[in-house]
């Protein structure tokens, strides 16, 4: 790499979630089962970043096998939220969200199976993209759930996402054709956080305010009905539990003591589900994908809640366990549509609140541009960042 070379990411520092192979570095998955494994090769996404001139900074904190949750019974301390170190930074790409919010690096690569890029982006007030399923190669990453896993870029600012995405996907993302929000048709999926589950008042107010701001900036915003949130979350939980059990069964049967308690509880669920459960959930998944695709025939993108509560205390086990059902990210893990998480405000205690923009498959550029235009109008300047002493 030399100054002046014509490379799209020349000299850009990028940090990598520790479930992704980086040649010569350990890939621990933050698990006792993978403590001493050094990657012989770069994962495909890392190789593409290097070839584009990026500087690979190192590895970032994750939850055990990208599923466990923050654990104090593992040799890896969990990441903390820079907005308040007593709070959960979201997961499982926790180190990516925390490091971006703290300003340690401008870009990071996470993975998103049921929301693991968008969750920490939401909790830490940064931007995270779950691209269209299958857009970025997962080679060099041990699967968590075969039909849900995605590599996803995370940045401080939405305009930084697309250069990364173009390199990671090895294809042009195209021109979003958006020059302003005027005329943009936004479908607001309000029922997820007002009827199917009830978001905290602060989160609910912030989402309505974001919808209002889009409208004031010239977009048309119409409330769009979808099937109940539980239909999506149940489908994802059933399928992903079975798929991850298929991967971890042997280790859970023979050396369960090496997992964290939280990891065991989550990875064992699939042992108690059946082939019938799997087939019925796959059927439902196809139906849900069709419904969301149809909603996107009448709207350019959907505005959807992400976390229904602000970040909780990292020491509160019950609250941590409660964060999993109280989210609206997994619907688009089920359907495969691209979903971008971006900040929309702060709570009274100065913790981030975010939302998702969801588009038709391969419309990532439009989502990033809409988020950029929204933030430029509502949070001009450098955006918002945590106070760091």
């Amino acid at each position, binding site marked *: 790499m030399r100054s002046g070379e014509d490379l799209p990411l020349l000299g850009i520092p990028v940090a990598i979630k520790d479930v992704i192979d980086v040649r010569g570095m350990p890939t621990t998955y933050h698990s006792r089962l993978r403590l001493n494994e050094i990657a012989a090769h770069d994962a495909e996404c890392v190789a593409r970043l290097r070839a584009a001139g990026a500087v690979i900074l190192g590895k970032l904190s994750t939850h055990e096998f990208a599923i466990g949750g923050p654990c104090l019974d593992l040799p890896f301390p969990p990441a903390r939220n820079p907005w308040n170190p007593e709070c959960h930074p979201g997961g499982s790409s926790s180190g990516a969200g925390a490091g971006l919010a703290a300003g340690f690096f401008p870009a990071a690569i996470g993975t998103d199976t049921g929301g693991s890029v968008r969750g920490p982006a939401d909790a830490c007030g940064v931007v995270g993209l779950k691209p269209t399923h*299958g857009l970025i190669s997962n080679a060099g990453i041990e699967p968590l759930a075969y039909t849900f896993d995605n590599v996803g870029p995370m940045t401080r600012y939405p305009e930084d996402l697309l250069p990364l995405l173009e390199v990671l996907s090895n294809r042009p993302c195209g021109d979003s054709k958006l020059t302003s929000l005027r005329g943009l048709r936004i479908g607001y999926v309000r029922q997820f956080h007002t009827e199917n589950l009830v978001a905290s008042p602060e989160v609910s107010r912030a989402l309505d305010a974001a919808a209002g701001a889009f409208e004031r900036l010239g977009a048309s915003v119409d409330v769009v009905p979808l099937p109940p949130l539980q239909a999506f979350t*149940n489908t994802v939980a059933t399928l992903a539990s079975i798929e991850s059990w298929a991967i971890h069964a042997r280790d859970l*049967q023979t050396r*369960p003591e090496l997992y964290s*308690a939280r990891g065991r509880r989550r990875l064992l669920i699939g042992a108690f589900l059946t082939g019938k459960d799997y087939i019925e959930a796959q*059927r439902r998944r*196809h139906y849900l994908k069709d419904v969301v695709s149809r909603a996107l025939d009448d709207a350019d993108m959907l505005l959807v809640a992400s976390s229904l509560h602000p970040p909780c205390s990292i020491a509160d086990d019950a609250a941590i366990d409660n964060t999993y059902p109280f989210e609206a990210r997994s619907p688009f893990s089920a359907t495969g549509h691209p979903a971008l998480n971006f900040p929309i405000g702060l709570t009274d205690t100065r913790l981030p609140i975010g939302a998702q923009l969801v588009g038709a498959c391969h419309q990532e550029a439009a989502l990033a541009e809409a988020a950029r235009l929204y933030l430029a109008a509502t949070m001009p300047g450098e955006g918002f960042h945590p106070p760091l002493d």
Partner: protein
Amino acid sequence: MERSLLHAIIECSHLQRAYEGFPEDVEAAAAKAWQLRTEAESLPPCPVQLTPWSPTPAGNP
């Protein structure tokens, strides 16, 4: 889930070792699976003509 049924499933799943060491974790996982199945049964039915499998799962062009 009834305890006898739970034990039968544990045996079929070769989870005896996990259950001996961490019975609470195994029982919690079984309870969650039971909850997922019960919730799925209460959801509105989706059209049955949809195929349950595709070589290109959700989202691929």
